[in-house]
């Protein structure tokens, strides 16, 4: 898992560094960023931080050999992932309806690429947790709870950095 996360650091790190350079260089990027929805970003940050709590509690339960409780917390974490995606869908729908699409300009291209790539990681994490949760119910492979948890916390950390870049610094 750590090797995978190492590669993910370069993927998202490259993306974020590129964004920072362009944002510093081109004033229109700041103007465009003023149109992102801070409320939606804040809600999603709250949702991901809370889902990270559920993920670590699932790990805690698995360490104590409580598979059913671990599965319960994993499903709460998946609930967080689904909530995140619903908020993101509403946010994107609103933006697209107002004419801010992936082809509007390079800021919006970056916005949809970065948030979309992150969203795909959310879907992947939720899918992995769902698979692991079924084993947990049978008390099998409880060590996998920690592995999917580490992945989920990483997805959370990426969002922690995307949030100020896309929604806060205006």
């Amino acid at each position, binding site marked *: 898992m750590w090797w995978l996360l*190492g590669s993910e650091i370069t993927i998202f*790190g*490259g993306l974020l560094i590129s964004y920072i350079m362009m944002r510093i260089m*081109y004033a229109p*990027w700041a103007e465009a960023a003023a149109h992102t929805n801070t409320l939606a970003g804040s809600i999603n940050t709250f949702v991901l931080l809370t889902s990270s709590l559920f993920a670590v509690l699932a790990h805690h339960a698995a360490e104590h050999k409580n598979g059913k409780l671990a599965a319960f917390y994993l499903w709460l974490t998946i609930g967080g992932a689904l909530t995140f995606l619903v908020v993101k869908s509403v946010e994107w729908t609103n933006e697209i309806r107002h004419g801010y699409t992936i082809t*509007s300009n390079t800021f919006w291209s970056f916005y949809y690429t970065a948030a979309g790539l992150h969203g795909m990681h959310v879907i992947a994490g939720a899918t992995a947790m769902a698979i692991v949760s079924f084993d947990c119910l049978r008390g099998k492979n409880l060590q996998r709870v920690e592995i999917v948890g580490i992945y989920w*916390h990483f997805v959370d950390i990426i969002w922690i*950095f995307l949030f100020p870049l896309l929604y*806060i*610094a205006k």
Partner: protein
Amino acid sequence: MSQAADGHHVNTKHGQSHGMDHPASYYVKLWALLLVLLVISIAGPMLGHKVLTLITAFGIAVVKALIVAAFFMHLNVEKRFVWYLLVTMLLAVLMFFFGTAADVMKYEGAHWTKPSAYLYTEEFKKAFSGGDEHEGHDSEDEDSKALPNVPYGEESAHGATGHSAPKAEHH
């Protein structure tokens, strides 16, 4: 290996240290701390002070990320090689920055200019609004003088890093 709250040692298959000695309430407290930091990071930039925005938005993002990494991912008790691996990857990102910043973050060099980027400088805007203040740079710069005819923010033939006027205001 970690020790469970009930006093039993709990092993997982790979036998790593997981830092799971704490009760569940320990993580709830960390989560509460993260939420407090989230509120500060949202409220800080509302004051409109640039330095305060940088500290509250980005400084706190780093603190939040470190809390999640150290205590939720348990990097605080993880093997040393994991740290080396992650730091190496971060250094690779830094290398990418230093490799590209010299190009991306400059408008012109000794033998080149970037008209599309220059379009957004104050100097350029002044030159075309005031007329004579602008000192031409070279032949490519002459080329850039045609750019103000391009609707502000639209992608130009010069590959401008553009900004298109929004069709409607929202948020």
